[in-house]
């Protein structure tokens, strides 16, 4: 192991993570969650057309490689006249991807809230939309924290594909350093360590969030 290389490359790698990986993951996750809620509601809709749209979306997103999704957004869209810069393209592609995966989580979480909660909302006069936002979603949130944080951890690692569409992040930095030094094993291990650090911090955040949300729920 070339320790000098490890030391020299630590900051560039970390910087690639902090300036590329993390903002990309955060932005995509935030937008993806909103999308996921919409898709989950489509899937839960009693209207067969809407529900089919939701199902088809999830099926395509989850059934095809993320790499191809990135390709289509960045290199395919210009053919129909839409040309976006790398960062917007990456955020769109990852958001769409998160939307597909998280939709299933959100849907399951909504279904996990006892039917009696909807009924209580109904009896005190609430519209379904209001019941959803004030009663169901706050409870679904607790249930969906663990699976959503899995989705987020996967996303953090998946952002390494963004280098394909010209976004510089942690993994791209690692490739650059590896190409220069030929010590790909060392550099990749170091990158893995930084990913692991990020994920560990995330997991700690998840625990804190779960505790917070547990406050008002029976054990």
């Amino acid at each position: 192991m070339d320790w000098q290389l490890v030391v020299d490359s630590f900051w560039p790698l970390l910087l690639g993570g902090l300036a590329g990986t993390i903002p990309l993951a955060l932005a995509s996750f935030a937008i993806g969650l909103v999308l996921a809620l919409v898709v989950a509601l489509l899937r839960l809709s009693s209207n067969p057309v809407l529900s089919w749209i939701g199902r088809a979306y999830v099926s395509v997103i989850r059934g095809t490689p993320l790499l191809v999704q990135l390709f289509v957004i960045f290199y395919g869209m210009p053919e129909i006249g839409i040309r976006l810069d790398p960062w917007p393209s990456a955020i769109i592609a990852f958001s769409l991807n998160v939307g597909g995966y998280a939709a299933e989580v959100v849907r399951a979480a909504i279904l996990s809230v006892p039917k009696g909660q909807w009924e209580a909302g109904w009896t005190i006069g609430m519209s379904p939309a209001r019941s959803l936002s004030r009663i169901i979603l706050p409870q679904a949130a607790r249930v969906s924290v663990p699976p959503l944080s899995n989705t987020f951890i996967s996303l953090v690692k998946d952002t390494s594909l963004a280098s394909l569409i010209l976004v510089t992040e942690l993994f791209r930095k690692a490739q650059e350093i590896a190409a220069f030094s030929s010590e790909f094993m060392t550099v990749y291990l170091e990158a893995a360590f930084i990913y692991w650090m990020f994920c560990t911090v995330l997991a700690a955040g998840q625990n804190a969030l779960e505790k917070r949300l547990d406050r008002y729920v029976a054990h």
Partner: protein
Amino acid sequence: MSHTEDRRQGALLTARGIHKSFGANHVLRGVDLEVGRGDVVALIGASGSGKTTVLRSLNGLETPDAGELRFDGGPVVDFGAQAAGQDGGRSGRRTAARTAKTNRAALRDRSAMVFQHHNLFPHRTVLENVIEGPTQVQRVPRETAVGRAEELLARVGLADKRDAYPHELSGGQQQRVGIVRALALQPDLLLFDEPTSALDPELVGEVLTVMKELAEEGWTMVVVTHELQFARQVASEVLFLDGGVVVERGAPAQIFTDPAEERTRQFLQRVLHPLD
């Protein structure tokens, strides 16, 4: 209470020929029901006989397949019309759907329900549970709603629990909060679905006592219950349901001491004397 007097007159709710199926399961087969102002109607019957379904039809949680409901001399809500609409092609169906929606909401806005498993909102405090309906739906100013809520909580002995979360309460306390949440809506009709059957026996009393007081104050109530003692003491009328039909109805004294129907007699025997 100030509104006690004007509750004791005329039929508040009339139900005629209510039918309801779940798939192939024909659960209600023509249920008639009349609830006068200030009445306490007890619905009894074996598990699966349709008690809950009757109750839920009264507040729109279920939409009957046929029959009509009339509230307080208001317009007749005719579920038959809807069934007819179903044959009437696309626009007929749409009108029917719209009507059903309006009907359901109309029913619901006159009544309030207390559930078997309380269904309190676990992420909100006791107070927030109680004022949710008044402030969010009825647009009562928060101040007013809180004031009323505190008054009601004090009445059921839970003034000091206003900031507790539901899981911090005992089962009996949870049910009492459920009752307060219903009262806070100031409904014309209170619906209870076995409010004590999920409770530990020594907690049953505290809930029944509150219900008894409400009855004495003149609230109109429909109560599904297995507490025959309570029905006997508090109800103005008892309905025995079996197989989706009201088999027998009458004053509690008559039903419990001298049931006209063999089925009623058997049911009472099984519940009151399980070991004989």
